[in-house]
């Protein structure tokens, strides 16, 4: 029974990692920017939800989607303010990466100045739970899993069946050719950042509702999401999603026989194992034909 409970906990954590990882992977695949500041965008979503739900007192049904939209907007704004000027100057991937680290550090410092370093809580008390035999599931865990299971097929449909989606895939596959074919890359970058950030927004509103928000919230989640992207196969979105779930489940199942202090060892051990034995990740072979 313990094993089943840990598996369920793992699926719930994995859903949040998967949403964040897919958002990161979408941006990386589409723009080639190693957007580590995705963590800052993630945290922004938590504070946006707090502002909408607590000081403004909006009902959850309004505050939750508003926070996801605000996160999408903030991600697009970050592209406009940080990356676009660098793109115009022809900055390479290393420069973009350094700028991204700067943006993450800067944003974290601003969050700490504005909201303090204490965790900002969005609600009081424990979460509603459901008992199924000896297994206990929280409402938030159920919602996390449902959101992830609904969002990924919708995203896949968008990317494969719509004009914008196909344009994103074309840009990801061959940016120069896409531009020659008349695709407005700058407009697409806005869309890509907004979409990727909205996925982070979905994850963070669930997490913030459960555990509150603090300035470094995105930093921790971001690292696990990065590992998920590598484990799943860089460049392939379903791989990032699978990597997220795999990490969440592995992290939790490791508690069955190991102490909690070994969780990082398990996560990064998995990363090292993939880098050494299967550097292309679980679904790396799919990249021959597809990129997003």
């Amino acid at each position: 029974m313990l094993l089943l409970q840990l598996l369920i906990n793992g699926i719930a954590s994995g859903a949040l990692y998967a949403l964040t990882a897919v958002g990161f992977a979408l941006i990386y695949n589409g723009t080639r920017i190693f957007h580590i500041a995705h963590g800052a965008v993630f945290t922004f979503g938590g504070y946006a939800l707090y502002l909408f739900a607590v000081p403004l007192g909006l009902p959850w049904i309004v505050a939750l989607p508003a926070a996801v939209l605000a996160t999408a907007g903030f991600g697009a704004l970050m592209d406009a303010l940080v990356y676009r000027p660098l793109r115009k100057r022809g900055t390479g991937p290393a420069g973009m990466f350094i700028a991204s680290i700067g943006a993450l550090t800067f944003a974290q410092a601003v969050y700490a100045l504005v909201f303090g370093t204490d965790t900002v809580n969005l609600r009081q008390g424990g979460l509603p739970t459901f008992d199924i035999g000896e297994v206990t599931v929280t409402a938030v865990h159920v919602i996390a899993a449902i959101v992830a299971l609904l969002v990924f097929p919708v995203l896949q449909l968008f990317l494969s069946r719509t004009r914008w989606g196909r344009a994103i895939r074309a840009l990801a596959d061959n940016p120069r050719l896409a531009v020659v074919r008349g695709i407005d890359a700058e407009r697409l970058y806005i869309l890509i950042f907004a979409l990727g950030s909205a996925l982070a927004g979905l994850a963070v509103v669930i997490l913030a509702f459960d555990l509150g928000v603090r300035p470094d919230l995105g930093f921790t989640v971001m690292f696990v999401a990065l590992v998920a992207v590598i484990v799943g196969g860089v460049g392939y979105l379903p791989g990032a999603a699978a990597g997220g779930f795999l990490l969440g489940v592995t992290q939790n199942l490791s508690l069955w026989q190991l102490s909690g202090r070994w969780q990082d060892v398990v996560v990064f051990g998995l990363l090292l194992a993939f880098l050494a034995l299967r550097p292309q990740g679980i679904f790396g072979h799919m990249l021959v034909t597809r990129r997003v």
Partner: protein
Amino acid sequence: MNHTARTAINRLVIAAAALSAGIGAASAQEPIRLGLAMPLSGQNGDYIKRYVLAGHELAIKEQNEKGGILGRPIKLFIEDSRNDGASAVSALNKLINVDKIKAVFSIFTPVVLPMLPIAEEKKVMVFAPSVEHPDLTKSRWAVRMTPTAAVNGTLVADQAIKMGMKTAAILTEDNEAVRVSVKAFIAQFEKLGGKVVGDETFKNQDTDMRGQLTKLRAARPDAFYFNAPSGRPVALALKQISEVGFKPKQIFATHLIEDREVMALGASMAEGVIYTAVATTPEFNQRFKAAYGYDADANAGKHYDSTNVLFEAIRKVGSDADMAKVRDAIYNWGEYKGTLGTFRFTGSGESRVLPILKIVKNGKYVRYEP
């Protein structure tokens, strides 16, 4: 004006001039320079500012309002040590070499222990009032104002056995000082016939402990002992205990359950928890609340008292020029009456403050009386 009157006026003028010169000399005196190096940013930053820094600043403000020490004002130089030893060492070096401090206040074992070799070499006193790690007072330049981690762990184990608990599970932050407390708890609990059926840890930045709590729930312990060095994990653990359906007969914790983060997440979750603390006087609590608008916690009292112990020692020695003399004055102070009640220094920086047990009852923190 006759001669007597003129003489009297002259004397008054001279006296006034002398007095004003004296006052001028006192206020122009070189301040007593003290340093504070603590993690003011990061997860524990706001907690430290709210209680720990506040405790030091209250003591300094009160002393300066009384004219300082030996006619000299007290000046506090503040540095953010962050929560790592390397940054703490940099902060201390800056305080010593640039700000010329004579003593430093700090907190948290991983921050304080790396500072000690430098403090010893430069003959700067280190006040770590709330650090419970046993190694702290092996240094001849350190002072603490709290029971050691082992004393707290033993007290909890004794109480659990007294309440008829046969089995116990433990969840703690993976932190050296906290683990000292846990080792003492396990040793005492098992010595008295109990059995520890689960011992789990979480990392400083972790927010989700449901996995560990699920595992501990499966072990079905009578008692659950939770120990973390800041209020946030305490609040989260209490919330998640109810979410995973973990229902031990008794939960034990530390005084950090009084942190307002616990109340912010829901006071009812803490109801009935028994925890270790040190007693602070009601008079101090009133002054603290008047100054800051919220209640003090035990750490505020410890850090406040440590500041005053230093002031008293400088006054007793008559100077801060030779800190070895100030240190010896503290180490050999004997009985000291402060905010923490009466405690004793008997040849070292160990202040022999005794812990008490408290309980959360009807949302209030009261002394536990079985």
